């Protein structure tokens, strides 16, 4: 038992060290956390999107798993991702998160969009196993919420 714990602990330390190393120049941990969260969205969306576009063969289990991951991700508490002082105004190129997030009403609006995203993801997960043609519209509804948040709060890529 103790041995297992030591191995696990070592594995955690190694993984953490790896993360710190991957971070390279330090960087703001909250920024890295939220960018990683977005990256995981993209990964799971990509699995579903490839099927919706017909680029990948439809697989009900893989589609459902990816959609369930999205649901789970929309339900994570993101409080620690968005501390004051981590917008483009303070961090420049390191982030694309606009100061509007921290301005009056910003969080409330983001939370509202987050709630709608959660709903859209739940609806996507409910139909993801129903066949290739069911994914497209449900995925589009998810994308609509991605866009709503990015439109209000994300500086476009140059």
């Amino acid at each position, binding site marked *: 038992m103790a041995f297992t714990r030591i191995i696990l602990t070592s594995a955690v330390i190694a993984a953490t060290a790896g993360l710190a190393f991957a971070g390279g120049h330090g960087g703001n941990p909250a920024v890295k956390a939220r960018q990683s969260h977005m990256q995981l969205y993209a990964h799971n969306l990509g699995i579903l999107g490839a099927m919706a576009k017909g680029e990948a063969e439809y697989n009900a289990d893989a589609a459902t798993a990816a959609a369930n991951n999205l649901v789970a991700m929309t339900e994570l508490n993101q409080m620690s991702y968005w501390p004051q002082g981590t917008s483009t105004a303070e961090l420049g190129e390191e982030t694309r998160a606009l100061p509007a997030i921290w301005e009056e009403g910003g969080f409330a609006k983001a939370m509202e969009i987050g709630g709608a995203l959660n709903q859209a993801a739940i609806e996507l997960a409910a139909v993801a196993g129903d066949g290739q043609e069911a994914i497209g519209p449900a995925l589009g509804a998810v994308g609509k919420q991605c866009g709503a948040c990015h439109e209000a709060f994300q500086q476009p*890529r140059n």
Partner: protein
Amino acid sequence: MTRPDRIDPARFAGVGGDPTRGETVYWASGCASCHAAEGDETRTVLAGGYRLATEFGTFVSPNISPDPVHGIGDWTLPQFADAMLNGTAPEGAHYYPAFPYGSYARMTDQDVADLWAFMGTLPASDVPSQPHDLTFPFNVRVAVGGWKLLNLDDDWVGPAGTEELERGRYLVEALGHCAECHTPRDATGGLERDRWMAGAPNPSGKGNIPGLTPAQLKWSAEDIAYYLETGFTPDFDSAGGSMASVVANLAKLPAEDRSAIAAYIKALPEAK
């Protein structure tokens, strides 16, 4: 460039508008992006109030809902056509080209009439239009006449060798007015036609609007059409900024129209 400021009303005498077709024109033309009320999820309450901050000052989009007092409900179809095709207001003043009539000038009369018919079915809003907040000399409206003389040109730019390309060109160059942001401008504020859709500084913020010429955009036609439907890039980032609003409009078009836009983009000439 001898286009008259005013359309002969007789030109529209026999043009009946169809609101169902007009709805497609409405979404393709992106009216809602600037004129829909903030927070209006239907994107059909055209109360205006959108603030477009530019180097010339801040333009505030007017109420163009069917309200006869605060909107444009008391206009005639030829007056609407004058606005869309000539940038001329009913009382004869020039509109600032923040309203993209330089692109809409390429619209067919039928589409103008259909759009007018559709807009007449939308909810009226009694929110008063706000004045623009522009700096001198850009607050001198009559100077826009000079801009028009230099830059109002409704010739087509891109190729249209097939029916799909022709539809795509119409959607991009006329209704979608994509070039207004994606094409760089010369010193007089006119679009640089030999660098068509080659990207430009963001007119209303930091950064750049990306170029879409073949050397600049490697996405497949399917990727482009899918992006215009869902906002998802090929690596499943999601459109932000003004483009998120464009996607919200284009998602309402028939799939063939998004494919036509994608085909046109893939056929763009390289910038010179």
